[in-house]
């Protein structure tokens, strides 16, 4: 028994309209495989246009599947109408029916199914407090704020007791505060209703904080599928490494130099030198070129008697509870985050240390992770 199973799904949009005489469009989604556990919260994460919303829409039945199969609770849904798939869908733009009150909006899909009036009333009143919209039931959608609309929108998706709850960037139109509040609320809700959920977002923070597992997609291809900790600590390639984390991982081209028994990362136009972790010694050699990735948290400023490389501060941002310092390494700006209270200004001399064991190696051409053998 599984929530959602996507097997070898492809999507290609037909090439109609829009003048350009390209014969065949590229696949919007390429050979996607994804299996969720029952009750799991999975985030589809990727930049705009990567195919995550397309995947969601194919699952919902709003989009044809070019090839492959989608199963919801082991039922193949490819040829089922959206209404027969037992899904709830929360939209990005809220998609409320403007002429109806909030109450009717929530109950609308139950009415379509011919559920009795008493039953509708019971279920709407049951869901409303869960989404904190019991005070809103008599209002019209135009009177609601963005956050309220989204709450109603989600209430509408879960009132039908779906087997699978789909959410399409539900927070993207909310501003900072409302977005945070709503995120917490979604988390609480999901804990309460324990419904298998697929959540589309381009915000890695949302994905990291909400999801049990994250599927990172780029150019229609699934890059990595794993728990937030896995994708953060063990990214499979440069894209995932750069996409997860804020500020993103520092990824710099490096040439490896062997000195005596040890290998070091060296960088163009910089005297920064970092020892290569010994676990990579069997994959690197003198003159080996690759990319080195290190998270800003793993770059440190050493004390007065540090053995770190002397460098100069290029940028300094004080964000209150953390400080971001940029250091020029060749033409790359290496970012580091510190909670240290010291205020720096551009040009200050510092000693730079890097937690060498936390570095990752990526192939220059393909961006694939180079692992120790």
């Amino acid at each position, binding site marked *: 028994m599984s929530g959602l199973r996507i097997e070898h799904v492809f999507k290609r949009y037909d090439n*109609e*309209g*829009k003048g350009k005489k390209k014969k065949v469009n590229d696949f919007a989604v390429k050979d996607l495989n994804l299996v969720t556990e029952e009750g799991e919260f999975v985030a589809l994460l990727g930049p705009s246009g990567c195919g995550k919303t397309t995947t969601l*829409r194919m699952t*919902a*039945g*709003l989009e044809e599947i070019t090839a492959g199969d989608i199963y919801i609770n082991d039922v193949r849904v490819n040829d089922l*109408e*959206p*209404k027969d798939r037992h*899904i*709830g*869908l929360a*939209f*990005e*733009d*809220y*998609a*409320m*029916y*403007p*002429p109806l009150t909030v109450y009717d909006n929530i109950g*609308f*899909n139950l009415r*379509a*199914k011919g559920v009795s009036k008493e039953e509708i009333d019971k279920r709407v009143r049951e869901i409303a407090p869960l989404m904190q919209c019991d005070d809103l039931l008599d209002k019209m959608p135009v009177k609601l704020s963005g956050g309220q609309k989204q709450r109603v929108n989600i209430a*509408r998706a879960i009132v039908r007791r779906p087997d699978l709850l789909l959410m399409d960037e539900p927070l993207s139109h909310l501003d900072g505060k409302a977005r945070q509040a709503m995120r917490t609320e979604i988390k609480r809700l999901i804990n309460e209703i324990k419904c298998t959920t697929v959540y589309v977002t381009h915000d890695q923070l949302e994905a990291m904080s909400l999801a049990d597992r994250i599927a990172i997609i780029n150019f229609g291809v699934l890059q990595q599928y794993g728990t937030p900790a896995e994708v953060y600590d063990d990214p499979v390639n440069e894209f995932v490494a750069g996409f997860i984390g804020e500020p993103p991982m520092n990824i710099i081209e490096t040439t490896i130099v062997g000195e005596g028994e040890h290998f070091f990362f060296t960088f163009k136009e910089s005297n920064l030198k970092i020892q290569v972790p010994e676990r990579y010694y069997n994959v690197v050699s003198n003159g080996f070129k690759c990319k080195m990735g290190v998270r800003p948290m793993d770059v440190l400023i050493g004390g007065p008697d540090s053995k770190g490389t002397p460098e100069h501060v290029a940028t300094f941002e004080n964000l209150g509870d953390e400080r971001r310092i940029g250091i020029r390494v060749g033409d790359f700006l290496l970012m580091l985050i510190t909670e240290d209270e010291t205020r720096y200004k551009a040009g200050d001399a510092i000693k730079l240390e890097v937690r060498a064991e936390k570095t990752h190696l990526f192939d220059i051409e393909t961006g694939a992770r180079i692992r120790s053998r």
Partner: protein
Amino acid sequence: MKTGPKTGTKVLLNILLLIYSIFALFPLIWMVILSFKSDAQMYNTLFVFTPTLENYRIVLFTTDYPKYLLDSLIVSGFAVIVSVVVGVPAAYALARYDFKKKEDIAFQILSFKFAPEILVVLPLFMIYQKLHIYDTYFGLIWVYQLISMPLLIWVVRGYFEDISVEIEYAAQVDGYTWYQIFFKNLIPLIKPGLVSAALLAFIFAWNEFTFPLLLAGTNVQPITVAITKFLGTDTAHYGQLAVAAVVSALPAIIFALCIQKHLVRGLSFGAVKG
């Protein structure tokens, strides 16, 4: 703190407005006055005269005037109905679907309004003769589409574009068919635009002169053309002419007043993101 213009400016503005409204309304007022004058007093009185309803009696009860009025109603009414039935789906398609030459087609529809009617009426006249639809209701209703359809399509299209497509998806997931979505959800949403565009189209069609003058004449005679009949070859019965004009202007004026509020809101709301 005072934010509006100063009192002096206000007075000046109002005086200017007054002058303009007299200028704009005077022909109408003069027409109404004329309609109550007898032929004898037509040329030798200005505002002081013995009012008479004789002109109204003659025009409304001794001529075919009611028939012309009916013709106008039939032609304009059906023209708008056809425009709505054809134009709303067309506007929906132009707003929602992506197809080849979409913008070209939309522009083509708008371009019907570009050329002066007198420019296209000659070829139309010949086509109408050949098709034997000259001087028929069908022919006039058809040609009136040039006037009412572009207006309707462009206004309603703007409304459709403002409706989030996700509403349609939501309804689909809720289990409604496309037709149910269209009639239950989309039509109510575009109603303000549809109503104002339709009424405006009706007024335009009602006031149309060139097409009915040249493409109809004996069987079908809208009021605009029929009025010219009151200009006799020997004498001009200005009183009767004025009555005909006053009565024919009534529906348009009544409509315009009724929908005044909706008209401005309806026509501006769709175009500008609100």
